[in-house]
């Protein structure tokens, strides 16, 4: 049994199901872990999960989103074992219903789409930065509801997410244009609203997302365009970055001392503070950034 690798399991889940999000994959991996290890005591179970979660977050470079999943899982187990003492049934429940969580997470996207649909009006021009399944499912839902809107997609460097979203939207017949990331400033006056997804939502209500989201947020605020974050609530994560600097991994830091191996370097994620966010569209409803904090507080202190 020692050959079980939480990281591999996690990666396998991500690979197998393109629709799965990182926090859900992490939860699934932890569920699998429980099934494989089948701990005998409450303490053992907690320790196993703890160490596995640590292994997982350490081994994956972009760990913010999966950390949210680990946090929820951990918290859920702790609550059930400590407060109600029925750890056995809890374990049983978790092991048995792994697939249920996945389907629920997909359900939550539909719910988001239903809620978020109200934010899209006829003749809207919507700017999207990065690729988010939640945003895409929202668009799809809105298009099915015969709302006529147009989308401007950024190229979303350094990933090719923009291209991905572009072709997906074209497939379902939504008028779409792709622009380079640096062109956001020149088109921002012509768009009505901005939608982005999120890797994680920090306690302040700010979001961690693909690099460039911050600049889009600043530009949107400057142009007084609403900036909506579309995200599932299991991406709320207990961290409080003060600025994008707090996120960057050591290898992404601006380092002038080493000779550059490749011409392009720098962070791949950034942090957009809550003052740039108009509202978060989640499966819990439309939240103001401050409501995120409340949800997290409710989860961690009771």
């Amino acid at each position, binding site marked *: 049994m020692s050959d079980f690798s939480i990281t591999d399991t996690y990666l396998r889940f991500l690979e197998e199901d393109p629709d799965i999000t990182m926090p859900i994959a992490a939860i699934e991996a932890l569920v699998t872990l429980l099934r494989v290890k089948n701990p005998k005591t409450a303490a053992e179970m907690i320790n196993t999960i703890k160490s596995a979660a640590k292994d997982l977050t350490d081994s994956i470079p972009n760990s913010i989103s999966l950390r949210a999943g680990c946090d929820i899982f951990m918290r859920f187990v702790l609550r059930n074992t400590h407060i109600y003492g029925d750890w056995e049934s809890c374990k049983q429940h978790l092991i048995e219903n792994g697939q249920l969580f996945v389907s629920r997470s997909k359900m939550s996207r539909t719910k988001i789409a239903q809620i978020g649909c109200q934010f899209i009006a006829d003749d809207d021009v919507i700017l999207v930065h990065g690729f988010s399944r939640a945003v895409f499912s929202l668009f799809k839902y809105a298009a099915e509801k015969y709302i006529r809107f147009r989308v401007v997609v950024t190229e979303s460097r350094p990933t090719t997410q923009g291209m991905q979203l572009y072709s997906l939207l074209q497939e379902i017949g939504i008028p779409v244009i792709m622009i380079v990331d640096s062109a956001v400033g020149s088109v921002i*006056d012509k768009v009505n609203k901005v939608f982005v997804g999120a890797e994680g939502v920090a306690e302040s209500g700010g979001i961690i997302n693909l690099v460039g989201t911050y600049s889009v947020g600043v530009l949107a605020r*400057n*142009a*007084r365009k609403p900036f909506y974050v579309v995200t599932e609530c299991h991406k709320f994560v207990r961290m409080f970055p003060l600025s994008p600097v707090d996120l960057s991994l050591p290898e992404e830091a601006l380092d002038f001392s080493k000779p550059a191996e490749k011409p392009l370097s720098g962070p791949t994620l950034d942090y957009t503070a809550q003052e740039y966010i108009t509202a978060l569209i989640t499966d819990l409803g439309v939240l103001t950034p401050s409501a995120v904090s409340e949800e997290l507080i409710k989860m961690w202190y009771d």
Partner: protein
Amino acid sequence: MSEPQAVTKQNPEEQDGSAPIDSAAEAKKLSNKELKELKKKEKAAKRSAKKTESGVTVEDQQTMAQAKRERKQQQREQQLKQRKEQQQKNSTKQTKKYIKKSTLFGHLETTEERRATLLSLTSAISASQVSRITAAGLMVPTITSEPVTPATIASSGGSASSENSAPTSELAKSLASMTLDSEEFSFVPGMTSITPHANEQLFASQQSVSSIRELLINKDLVHPSIILLTFQLANYKIVGSIPRCIAMLEAFQNVITDYQTPQGTTLSRNLTHYLSHQIDILKKGRPLSVTMGNAIRWLKQEISVIDPSMPDKKAKQILREKIAQFAREKIEFADRLIIEAGSQHVENGSTIVTYGSSKVLTDLLIHNAVELRKDFQVIVVDSRPLFEGRKMADQLRRHGVNVLYALITSLDAIFNMNVDYVFLGAHSILSNGFLYSRVGTAMLAMCAKRRNIPVLVCCESLKFSQRVQLDSVTLNELADPNDLATVRSDNCSLEHSQKDLLSQFIKERTEHKKLSNQENKPSGNSAPSRSSSSTPSSAPSSTNTTTDSNDKSILDGWRDIHSLNIVNILYDLTPPEYIKKIITEFGSLPPSSVPVILREYKSLA
């Protein structure tokens, strides 16, 4: 008749006296005698303070003192009476004696003050042409025709020696003293009573009295076309800084035509002096606009460079031509250049927001719609009480422009309508880049700026001012607060103010009638003091009913509510950061370049 009064007076007097005693007694018990002496001193101090306050000069204080000495016998009771009246007034009616001045804009001249000055001036001017000066005052024809007038004059003239407290008589007294001082003054008591509150306030400050005196001395020098213009300006018949400037230049052309250089001086030296008398009068109608100031400065410069040896006729000819040329260059041609430059921003299918009314903007938009055949929408934003935008909206509509008319309270809805540009006119642009324009402009510019909509200002360089100013409160122009007292949505400032004056005048006349009737009947000392007490008490009721039933509004009689004020300012300042571009005849420039143009302009002029 006076006896019961005297009895009742005793009580309040005592009560009143006891109040200070109570407080004083705690520290030290004073004897009755000491108290009385104290009170006497107090009274004397109060009287003298009051005198200086009301602008009575030292000389006539002396003459009054003489008159007082003669009447010393009946002092006791009389003084008590007066004292009581004073107290009454102090407690309740004091406020009515002064013009309402808002705490925020106390430093600015109110329309009432202006109107009062103007009235006293014109009454003097017109009177001098019709009737002769008497020592106590004189009559304009309208008043002489009234049978009551002699009595009125007698009462007000006579009151100079007998009454201290009645506001009207005090006024008359100060006026009378002025006529005594210099034979050249002429004042009409009946006339001045039209705006007693205003005049009273006016005469309270030595400064304004002397300024009026000065104006009166020079009244013969004032040209009739200037007087006409002054009235047109004061009644807002001519509005807008450019039309005002043009009207002034035209009037100056007339003035120069009629000008004769006096013996022993030259035109280049004397004409400037002569003009400054005209300008002094103009200022009384309404504060000069920046354009007028700039034009005047230029004109004086032009006069000063005229060769003294040049014959008058030729010099006047040259000046008139120069004025015409100035108007053409600085306004007409400048407007044409501005329209040319501004047209690039009027695009097909665009929506343009403007505020109030601007001549050059109207021309610009009509030019684009008619000659350039562009199809665009204009949103004219307007505000109370002037509703200038209606004129502009009508003009545009008549030329087939698609116009939407809205009020400034709908700003939010306006800017939800995909606005492309905001075009603004200007009264003036200050040296620090601030736009000084019709009140409300700043809010519009702010809203536009916050929505990233470019704000463009069309403005002739004639409107550039050397002045710097930081906020709209420090220097501004106050309009008539009565314009805001009604709820009507049509422009009523003109008729209203005139009606107001007229009705007040009628009230005053009837009061005088009553007063003189009373005077005719009883004889003795009690009469003037009684009538004096009746004057202030009936004043509030008169203002209460000034505007009659056809538009009775809630704020009628707002002057009587002590803590209620209405502020009606005409301009506000728009900070340069809200303004994207200023379009002038020198091209388009950022607000920061205003001082650059000013330097250039100076060298040109």
